């Protein structure tokens, strides 16, 4: 695809966007930007950057978007420029690609002699015989234009001319897919305790987002059970959530959700992602002066006020803390007092008496359930992304490994026989075509001449 250096032209934005030099520049700058994004940790809380780097450097990183490279205005700008570059090049090259695809079915005699491969020779016999011989030699290898006359035109692999354009367009299809996904899709996650269900998901937002954004689901997702199995080394080998989709109280879908085996329902997909303990405990709070007992049932992470002006929060849990069995961390606030952090062990009901407080807490009933962590995604752009990817690979195969080959045979009746002009051209891979051209000449029975002269392309 070498293009002749054009004569100096006045500067124009259009020519700039048509230039391969701009492409080269953009590809390398995008690569450099991407490198920066892997060397500087992305999307950490602001303070982290000031802890690790000098103040000036941290400020520079934060202002220039180097802490979130792939979503920064300049990175997206470079992508946009690349897309414009692609579109401009494709539009600019389109007429010449179309012309090349059609080939040259009817060239002038001089054009034949200027082809990269050509040979002229004289063979005895009639014109009819010669035409039959030529058609025979080309059969099965080249597609021949059905035409009468003295010129036979045969071609193969013209589709290869579209390869580069297909690769470039595929990138645009991919970009469209990415945009569709970011406009109409969402990404989120949910942690659901076994035996419970959810009607909304927590959206993933920017790292500095203070609030949790939730998005309602158009149905209810219920987790019946969660199981994890382990290798003998203790590493998890498999984890499964048995989930049900409920609509208006009826089960409309049921599935064992595993890693690598997601559930898609009404365009929303749930992926098994993580799991963890979800203990539920009843804490017994006793007033040592009056003897009154308050029962407080809480699951991990829950905080609630109870009778008697007491509020409890269940903050932490360990299945086996210091080999003392299940341990619970709670926060208790008696009205009018500072909140107190309390550590409790199920196996030692009197542990909390050590604090010497009026209110003493112990663990009553306790049930260890699991929660399952699911990633949730809706991305209507995905089919576009796959279509773009498939097109890109097909286009590459066409552009890199297929060549458009053309052969012309012109026959002219002379009184000693027939004068042959055989010419050939290929869009790439001249070495392979040279062999093929030689073979064609042998089949025709061209007299052994000095090696086919190679002209300039």
């Amino acid at each position, binding site marked *: 695809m070498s293009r002749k250096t054009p004569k100096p032209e006045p500067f124009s934005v259009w020519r700039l966007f048509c230039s391969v030099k701009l492409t080269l520049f953009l590809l390398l700058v995008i690569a450099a930007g991407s490198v920066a994004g892997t060397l500087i940790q992305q999307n950490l809380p602001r303070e982290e950057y000031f802890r690790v780097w000098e103040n000036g450097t941290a400020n520079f990183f934060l202002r220039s978007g180097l802490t979130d490279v792939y979503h920064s205005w300049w990175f997206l700008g470079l992508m946009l420029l690349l897309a414009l570059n692609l579109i401009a090049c494709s539009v600019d090259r389109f007429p010449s690609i179309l012309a090349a695809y059609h080939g040259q079915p009817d060239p002038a005699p001089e054009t034949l002699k200027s082809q990269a491969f050509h040979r002229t020779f004289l063979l005895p016999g009639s014109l009819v015989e010669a035409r039959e011989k030529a058609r025979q030699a080309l059969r099965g290898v080249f597609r021949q234009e059905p035409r009468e006359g003295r010129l036979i035109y045969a071609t193969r692999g013209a589709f290869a001319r579209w390869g580069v354009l297909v690769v470039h367009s595929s990138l645009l299809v991919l970009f469209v897919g990415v945009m569709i996904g970011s406009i109409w899709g969402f990404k989120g996650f949910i942690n659901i305790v076994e035996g419970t269900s959810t009607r909304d998901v927590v959206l993933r937002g920017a790292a500095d987002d203070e609030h949790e954004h939730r998005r309602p689901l158009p149905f209810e997702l219920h987790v019946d059970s969660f199981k994890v199995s382990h290798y003998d080394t203790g590493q998890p080998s498999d984890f499964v959530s048995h989930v049900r989709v409920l609509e208006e109280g009826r089960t409309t879908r049921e599935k064992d959700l595993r*890693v*690598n085996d997601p559930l898609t329902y009404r365009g929303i*997909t749930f992926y098994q992602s993580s799991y963890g303990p979800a203990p539920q405990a009843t804490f017994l709070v006793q007033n040592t002066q009056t003897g009154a007992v308050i029962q407080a049932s809480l699951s991990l992470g829950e905080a609630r006020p109870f009778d008697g002006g007491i509020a409890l929060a269940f903050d932490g849990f360990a299945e086996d803390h210091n080999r003392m069995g299940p341990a619970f961390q709670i926060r208790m606030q008696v009205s009018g007092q500072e909140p107190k952090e309390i550590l409790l062990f199920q196996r030692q009901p009197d542990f909390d008496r050590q604090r010497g407080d009026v209110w003493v807490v112990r663990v009553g009933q306790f049930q260890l359930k699991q929660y399952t962590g699911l990633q949730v995604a809706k991305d209507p752009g995905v089919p576009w992304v796959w279509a773009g990817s498939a097109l890109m690979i097909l286009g590459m195969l066409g552009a890199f490994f297929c060549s458009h080959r053309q052969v012309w045979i012109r026959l002219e009746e002379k009184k000693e026989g027939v004068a042959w002009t055989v010419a050939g051209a290929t869009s790439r891979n001249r070495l392979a075509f040279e062999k093929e051209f030689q073979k064609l000449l042998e089949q025709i029975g061209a007299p052994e001449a000095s090696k086919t002269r190679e002209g300039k392309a």
Partner: protein
Amino acid sequence: MNSVVVFNIALGVFILAELVYLLYLAKRSQGIGRAATTVAWLGFGVTTVAFVLRSFEFMLAKQMRLPLTNLYESLLFFAWSIALVYLLYERKYKLRALGAFVLPLAILALAAPYYIPGVTTTIPKLPPALQSAWLEWHVMTCFLGYGAFGVGAVLSLLYLVKAPREAKGTMGPVLRLLPSADMLDELCYRTILVGVPLLTAGIVLGAVWANQAWGTYWSWDPKETWALIVWLIYAAYLHARITRGWRGRKAAYLALLGFVATLFCYLGVNLLLSGLHSYGGRG
């Protein structure tokens, strides 16, 4: 016999092949050249046998996967890919003189457990995320691509050494044995033409898999990002060759840069950065 032992035998055979290729460069006798090629094919055969054996070991551990699951196995496959790409090239283009320059890459990869600390050779237990049919296709396409880029890098290095001496007419006997500088440039280009679709397919298969496992086809994880960087550099290489001024020397530098990025994507990311591909690490 344990597959690790067979891989070590393959390492020995490749070292022997390297010595014979070097002897060929010194003596320039066709007989020695043919011997070198034979030993190299033998090394490739032994590596293949080792892979088959390791697959059986996986089956015994009740894991129906090809052994392409951790850093050690990927290094073995990298060596296998390099040897395959090179040997096919040698056959197609009669390039025996290149053997001595390409095989060291395969040797370095096979010998990695001896110099990269913590590369374990035991049969791994696959975490749930790796239990996917996409695993093998993703790894195979990526690594065949890496293998092609490795061969391309050696070709461009040789181009950079040969081109100026060819122009000045100051070539030694070894350089004379190599294909012409233009041919080296052309071969490097063709190798990269093989590598780019493979890498592209590898990235796409990885994206398909990530979408199935995590619900995101692209998350700017360091491995993904570095694969993209490699892809961009080779895309630049292909475009550079269209622009006349970038042929030859500049293109060769880009091809080398591409392979340096490939190595970082492969090893640097696992050993130096953290991310979703952590199981490709030393563990």
